[in-house]
C-alpha cells in the first residue's frame, strides 16, 4: 500500500455493513463528530456547580533545603478553601511508576525546579494562584547536580541517599575487541525534548458519599494511577474510582502522575469538587521529558563494509526522580546496535539522577537516542568503506532469524533491507529551477529556507538527501506481566444485535476506540458496536504506551469476542439440538455445517444477554542477565525507515525540509487512515527533535517553558510525506499486527540530520541541529 501526498483517502462510513467496518477498513472515529463540533469533553472542559479551583506552589530552585514553609498568608485570603502541604498527605507520601521515590508534596529538600510543595483550593483560579504566591518558603539554595556524566563521577553530590546511578544496563556478546580494518568513533548528544501534547494536565476530583473520590482525568493508564492515588490518600483502591476524561494527546507524558493526587486531596479535604488545569508554563514543569543523552560509539568494520563490532557507552539524564528511567535505559541498550547484524557487542547504558527536570517516557524512549547515534555512525562507516549509505546498511541489515545483541532471535518479519530500498527507490521531489526569479517559474519564497522572511531567493541553498532506519520493541519487556482485560457484551437492542466493548484502555488520540469496535465487528459480525467509556470498573488494560495498546487490548477484545461467540454457539446448540462444533457465526447468522442458516443472531438471543470478560497476555518476556544483558527481553520488534530531502541555506543555517518518505512494516493495517495519521504524526515529532525542539536547561533551570520559546513544528515546517506500508504478518500477534506508534518518530530525526550533513559536509553530532551548527560563519 502506497499513499502519496495530496491524494485524500476518505474514511469509510461507520454503520455500514459489518464486513465493511471491521478490521482493515478506514473506519471513521466514533468521537470525531464531537471533536469537530467542540462538544467532546476534554479533561480541562469539566465543570460542576460549586467546584473549587486547585493551584500548585512549586520550587523555583533546582536544589534547595526547605527550612520552613509558612502557609498563613494563603490561609488569610478570602475565597481560599484549603492550603495543604506534606503533612496533610494522609497515606504514602511518595509516588512513582517503577519506584515511589517522588514526594507528593516536598518537605525538607527540593530536587528540581518545579517540584510541588503546597496545593491550594479556592473559588477562582486567580484566587488560588494568588494564594500560592502568598505562601512563604524559606529555602537554603544548594548547588545543583546538572549532568548525567558528572553525577556518576566519584565524589559527586548524591541527589538521593542511595547515590546517583538509577540503572546500568550492560550487554556483552562475542568479542567486542575483535580486530577490524576500520574503526569509526563518534560522540553524539540528544537534547531534552518535550511531548508538548496540546491538552494540558487537568482533571476534576469529586468527593463521594462513601468517603472515596471520583477522578475524571486524562491519563495513559487508569489502574496505575488508581493504585498510586489510593496509596497516597490512604484509601483502598475501590474507593478511588477513575474515569478517563478526554485526552488531548499523551506521547508518554501522561504515564506519570501530575495533578491526580493533588486534586483528590483537595476534594477530600474540602468536601467539594476540585478542578485543576495546568497552564502551558506549568505543564512544562508538570510532566517528565525525553532523556537528554550523550552517546559514545565505536564501530569496527572490514574494508568490504561488514560490521565487526560495536562498542557504546550511553549516559541518560534521568533528572531528579526515577520515573521510567530503568526501562529507557534497557531500550537504549538492547536496541543500541540498531537493526544490524553484528556479532561482537559491548554496550553500557547508564541512567543517572541529577537535579535537572525528571525525565521518563516519550514516544520511542531509549530507541530515539540510540538511533541518532548508530545511524550517524552508519553514515560515517559507509563513507569510510566507500559505499553509499543505503548500500552499507543493506549489507549489514538484520532479517528474520537474526540474533539481537541480547541473544534474542528475531522470530518474525524484519524487512530492514526492503524498507531501506523502498525509501531509496521512491521518486525524488523535483528540484527548483536554478536562477529563476521567485514568484515566476522559480521557487516560491514559501518553499525556501527562511520562507517569507525573504532571506534567500535560492542563493546559498544546497539540497541534501539522507536515510535512516530504526528498531523499536513493542510492549512492556523484561518479564513484566503485560496484559489487558476486555469485557464484551452482546444483546438485542431495538430488534438488532448490539455489542458493547468495555476496557480500561486509554484513547489518547491514536484511534484505539475505533479499532476496538472494528475488532468486535469482525469477530462477531455485528454492525452496531459501542465502546464503553474507559474506567476502573473493569480490569486493567495496561498503558497506552510502547506501541502496545492495539496489540494487547486488541488481543483482549478479540479473545473476549471469541468467548462471546462460543457462548452464542452453545446457546444455539442447545436450542436447535445440534453439536456446537458444527455451528458458526457468520454475518449475524447462526450457520450449521449440515443445514445452513439456522437463525439470525437477534432471533436466537431474544432477551438473552451474553457477557464475557477476558484477561489476555502476549507471549512472556524474560529479564536480562545482569552481567551480560542476554535474554529474550522483548516480545516484538518494529521497523521504519525514512528518506529526508532538505534544502539548506548554508549562509544562515536555515533549513527547509522538502519531503519525508517513510516505509514501515505494520504487520496488518488495522485502520489504514488512522495508521497513516500515526506515521505522519510520529514523523513530525522526529522532525521537531532534529531541527527545533529542546527544553533548554541551565544550572537545572528551564529557560523556555512556553510555546513562544519551545518550538514544535507548524504546518509550514512540515513537508509532504510519502508513505509506503508493508503488511508482513507477525504470526504471534493478533491479526499479525505490529505496533506502529513509535517507529516513525525514531528514524525521521537521523534521516533529516543525514540530509543536512550531505548538504553541508558538517559533522552535526547533536540534535536539535541549530543554525550555528550549519552556518559557515560561527557566532
Amino acid at each position: 500500500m502506497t499513499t502519496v501526498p495530496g491524494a485524500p483517502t476518505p474514511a469509510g462510513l461507520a454503520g455500514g455493513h459489518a464486513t465493511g467496518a471491521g478490521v482493515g477498513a478506514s473506519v471513521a472515529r466514533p468521537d470525531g463528530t464531537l471533536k469537530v463540533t467542540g462538544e467532546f469533553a476534554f479533561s480541562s472542559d469539566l465543570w460542576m456547580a460549586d467546584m473549587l479551583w486547585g493551584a500548585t506552589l512549586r520550587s523555583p530552585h533546582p536544589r534547595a533545603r526547605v527550612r520552613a514553609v509558612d502557609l498563613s498568608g494563603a490561609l488569610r485570603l478570602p475565597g481560599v478553601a484549603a492550603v495543604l502541604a506534606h503533612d496533610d498527605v494522609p497515606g504514602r507520601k511518595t509516588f512513582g511508576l517503577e519506584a515511589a521515590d517522588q514526594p507528593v508534596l516536598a518537605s525538607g529538600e527540593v530536587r528540581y525546579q518545579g517540584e510541588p510543595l503546597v496545593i491550594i483550593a479556592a473559588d477562582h483560579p486567580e484566587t488560588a494562584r494568588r494564594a500560592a504566591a502568598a505562601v512563604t518558603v524559606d529555602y537554603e539554595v544548594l548547588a545543583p547536580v546538572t549532568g548525567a556524566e558528572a553525577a556518576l563521577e566519584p565524589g559527586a553530590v548524591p541527589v538521593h541517599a542511595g547515590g546517583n546511578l538509577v540503572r546500568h544496563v550492560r550487554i556483552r556478546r562475542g568479542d567486542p575487541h575483535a580486530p577490524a580494518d576500520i574503526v569509526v568513533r563518534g560522540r553524539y548528544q540528544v537534547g531534552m525534548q518535550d511531548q508538548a501534547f496540546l491538552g494540558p494536565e487537568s482533571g476534576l476530583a469529586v468527593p463521594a458519599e462513601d468517603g472515596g473520590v471520583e477522578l475524571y482525568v486524562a491519563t495513559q493508564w487508569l489502574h496505575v494511577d488508581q493504585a498510586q492515588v489510593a496509596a497516597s490518600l490512604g484509601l483502598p483502591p475501590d474507593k478511588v474510582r477513575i474515569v478517563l476524561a478526554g485526552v488531548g494527546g499523551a506521547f508518554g507524558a501522561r504515564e506519570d502522575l501530575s495533578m491526580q493526587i493533588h486534586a483528590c486531596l483537595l476534594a477530600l479535604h474540602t468536601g467539594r469538587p476540585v478542578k485543576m488545569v495546568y497552564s502551558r508554563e506549568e505543564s512544562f514543569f508538570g510532566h517528565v521529558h525525553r532523556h537528554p543523552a550523550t552517546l559514545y560509539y565505536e564501530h569496527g568494520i572490514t574494508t568490504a563494509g561488514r560490521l565487526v563490532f560495536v562498542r557504546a557507552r550511553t549516559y541518560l539524564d534521568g533528572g531528579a526522580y526515577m520515573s521510567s528511567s530503568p526501562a529507557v535505559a534497557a531500550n537504549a541498550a538492547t536496541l543500541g546496535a540498531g537493526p544490524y547484524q553484528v556479532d561482537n557487542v559491548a554496550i553500557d547504558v547508564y541512567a543517572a539522577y541529577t537535579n535537572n527536570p525528571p525525565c521518563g517516557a516519550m514516544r520511542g524512549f531509549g530507541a530515539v537516542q540510540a538511533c541518532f547515534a548508530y545511524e550517524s555512525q552508519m553514515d560515517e562507516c559507509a563513507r569510510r568503506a566507500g559505499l553509499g549509505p543505503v548500500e552499507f546498511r543493506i549489507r549489514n541489515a538484520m532479517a528474520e532469524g537474526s540474533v539481537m545483541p541480547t541473544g534474542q532471535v528475531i522470530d518474525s518479519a524484519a524487512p530492514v533491507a526492503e524498507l531501506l530500498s523502498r525509501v531509496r527507490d521512491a521518486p525524488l521531489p523535483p528540484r527548483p529551477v536554478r536562477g529563476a526569479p521567485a514568484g515566476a517559474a522559480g521557487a516560491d519564497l514559501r518553499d525556501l529556507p527562511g520562507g517569507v522572511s525573504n532571506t534567500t531567493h535560492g542563493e546559498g541553498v544546497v539540497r541534501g538527501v539522507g536515510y535512516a532506519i530504526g528498531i523499536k520493541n513493542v510492549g512492556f519487556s523484561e518479564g513484566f506481566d503485560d496484559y489487558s482485560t476486555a469485557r464484551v457484551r452482546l444483546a438485542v437492542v431495538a430488534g438488532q444485535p448490539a455489542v458493547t466493548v468495555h476496557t480500561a484502555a486509554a484513547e489518547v488520540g491514536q484511534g484505539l476506540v475505533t479499532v476496538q469496535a472494528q475488532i468486535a465487528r469482525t469477530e462477531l459480525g455485528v454492525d452496531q458496536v459501542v465502546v464503553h467509556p474507559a474506567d476502573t470498573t473493569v480490569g486493567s488494560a495496561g498503558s497506552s504506551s510502547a506501541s502496545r495498546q492495539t496489540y494487547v487490548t486488541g488481543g483482549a477484545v478479540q479473545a473476549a469476542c471469541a468467548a462471546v461467540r462460543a457462548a452464542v454457539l452453545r446457546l444455539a446448540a442447545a436450542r436447535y439440538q445440534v453439536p456446537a462444533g458444527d455451528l458458526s457465526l457468520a454475518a449475524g447468522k447462526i450457520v450449521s455445517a449440515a443445514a445452513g442458516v439456522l437463525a439470525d443472531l437477534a432471533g436466537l438471543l431474544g432477551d438473552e444477554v451474553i457477557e464475557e470478560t477476558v484477561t489476555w497476555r502476549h507471549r512472556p518476556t524474560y529479564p536480562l542477565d545482569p552481567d551480560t544483558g542476554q535474554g529474550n527481553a522483548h516480545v516484538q520488534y518494529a521497523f521504519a525507515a525514512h528518506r529526508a530531502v532538505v534544502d539548506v541555506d548554508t549562509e544562515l543555517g536555515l533549513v527547509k525540509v522538502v519531503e519525508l518518505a517513510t516505509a514501515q512494516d505494520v504487520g496488518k493495517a488495522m485502520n489504514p487512515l488512522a495508521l497513516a495519521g500515526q506515521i505522519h504524526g510520529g514523523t513530525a515529532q522526529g522532525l521537531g527533535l532534529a531541527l527545533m525542539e529542546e527544553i533548554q536547561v541551565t544550572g537545572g533551570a528551564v529557560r523556555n517553558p512556553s510555546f513562544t520559546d519551545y518550538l514544535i513544528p507548524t504546518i509550514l515546517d512540515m513537508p509532504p510525506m510519502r508513505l509506503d506500508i508493508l503488511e508482513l504478518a507477525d504470526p504471534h500477534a493478533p491479526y499479525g499486527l505490529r505496533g506502529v506508534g513509535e517507529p516513525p518518530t525514531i528514524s525521521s530525526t537521523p534521516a533529516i540530520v543525514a540530509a543536512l550533513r550531505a548538504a553541508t559536509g558538517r559533522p552535526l553530532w547533536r540534535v536539535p541541529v541549530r543554525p550555528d551548527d550549519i552556518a559557515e560563519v560561527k557566532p
Partner: protein
Amino acid sequence: MRVTCTVNGSAATAEDVWEGESLLFVLRERLGLPGSKNACEQGECGSCTVYLDGVVVCACLVAAGQAQGRDVRTVEGIIAPGGGLGAVQQAFLDCGAVQCGFCTPGLIVAADDLLRRIPGPADAEIREALAGNLCRCTGYEKILDAVRLAASRMSGGEPEGGAG
C-alpha cells in the same frame, strides 16, 4: 463586572467577571462553551481561535471586557444552515484530520475563515493561513487533505455536507 455580547447569534451575559479574565475563560467557564481550547493561553497555538466581529482572533488574547457589545462566533457556532456539520467539519472527519482533537476546534474556525476569504486556496496559502494553529498528533498532512476536500466540495467539485 458584567460582560454582554452576542455569542453564536444569541445574546449572552456573564456576571461577576474578574477584569483579568480572558474572553476564552468567559466562554469556557461562564458561558458553557468549552469548545474553544486552552492549550497555551498566550496566543501561540491557535486552539482558542474564534471570530470576533467576523475576524479570527485568539480568544485567550482578548480581555473579557473587550468583547463587550461585540459579536463572537465559536466552533460551536460553525454549523451548516440546516443544522448539520459544516463543510470543513465534514472534511476533517472524512480525511482523518482528527486524532486527539484538542487543536481541532481552532483549526475548524481558522480553515472556515480561510475558505471564506479564498475559496480555492493553493497549498502554500493553506499552510500560511493555518501556520498559527499547532497540532501535535497529525503532522498536518491530513489537515491539508481536509481543507483541500472542503474547498473542492464548497466550489461544487463534490457534494458537501453543509455551507460551512
